[in-house]
């Protein structure tokens, strides 16, 4: 088995792991971490395809590599926005849950009149 096949299989496993975490974790923050794991697995697949496109002295196809760099930055921006939403939810309701039946805690901060 070559490096690209090995890493490709690893990426496939990462996508499945991340998807499982995002589906089953009760805490939104853990879902977010799992979703990032899923995303990095997809990026790694891109890397495998880029490596298969090696040509002469170029170690890999630069186009998917550049797409992944853009993707990592955008994924970070989306994660930061999601974390900010989650922290705001916790401030408003005192809880950080997506479960509508969960008992509400005390708001961490009283909203201004």
């Amino acid at each position, binding site marked *: 088995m070559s*490096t690209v096949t*090995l*890493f*490709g*299989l690893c*990426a*496939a496993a*990462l*996508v*499945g*792991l*991340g*998807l499982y975490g995002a*589906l*089953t*974790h009760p*805490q*939104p*923050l853990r879902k*977010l971490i799992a979703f990032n*794991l899923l995303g*990095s697995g997809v990026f790694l697949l891109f*890397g495998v*395809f880029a490596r*298969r*496109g*090696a*040509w*002469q002295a*170029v170690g*890999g*196809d*630069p*186009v998917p*590599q*550049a*797409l*992944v*760099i*853009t993707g*990592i*930055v*955008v994924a*970070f*921006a989306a994660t*930061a926005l999601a*974390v*900010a939403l*989650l*922290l*705001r939810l*916790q401030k408003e309701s005192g*809880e*950080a*849950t997506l*479960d509508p039946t*969960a008992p509400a*805690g005390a708001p961490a901060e009283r*909203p*201004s009149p």
Partner: protein
Amino acid sequence: MSLTYVLESVLALLVLGAAAWTIAARSAFAAAVGFVSYGLLLSLMWVQLAAVDVALTEAAIGGGLTGVLLLGAVATLRGTEARTSRRPASMLRLLAAACCALVSVALAAVVLTLPEAGPTLAPHAMAALPATGVGNPVTGVLMAFRGFDTLLEKVVLVVALVGVWSLAPDRYWGGHPGLEHRLPADGVLPFFARMLPPLGVLLGIHLMWTGADNPGGAFQGGTVLAAMWLVVMMAGVRDAPAIREQWVRLALVSGPVVFVAVGLAGMLTAGAFLAYPVAIAKPLILLIEVPMLLTIALALGLLVTGPPERPADPS
């Protein structure tokens, strides 16, 4: 079986182990720490895939900045963690696991049945690269061949930051983001925050500059600058700026604005949006990259710092 192959197999196992730990860890703190080590291990995989530019980005953003962001959120949400632990029924989890395994198996099947020779745009990129004046094909793709993606990505950064800011309570709008960090001025962290940034700033600018011909670029350099800024803010050496400050807003939009301006000028001088006249392609790319570095550093730093939580100073 060569030694490299053994090492690569160990690396793949370590990455999978760190990923499994991140999912299975009992506490959110352990998961966040696991995610940071996962990011660093993953960047080693990128090196093995001959994608050093991506490895630098993954280590700096995937491992570094995302880690800071997650650890901050874990600390704030610690009190709610124990109350948010109702997992789905075991039957449902089993079903989810089966479906996820199916996705993995399908992807693995795709990997195993790929055609012998992969499609590649490398010859095209290398043939057109001399016209851009840069020597690193990845930088060439980012700044010239797929410049539109890079432009939109800058816009995404600014829009995401506006989204984060808009979550501020009304009374803090325009104020300082994050908590005020007050540490003894003679402590270890403030010392660190005075010693490290001069070197870090040099490294960040060097990464951007050398990215033209070597691995690196504005993304990686900007992330290093953002990290230096975060160290300074967290040590309380300098407070985060109030978001109503004119310079913050101007610096934030400078990257996309210069990019669009050069792109529009390309319509007149080179016949297409975002096209560069070949004679001055390299200077134009640098002209775009410098404000882009500033935008990336500011936006990444402020995204980690979060929405305003204190009123602006009375002025």
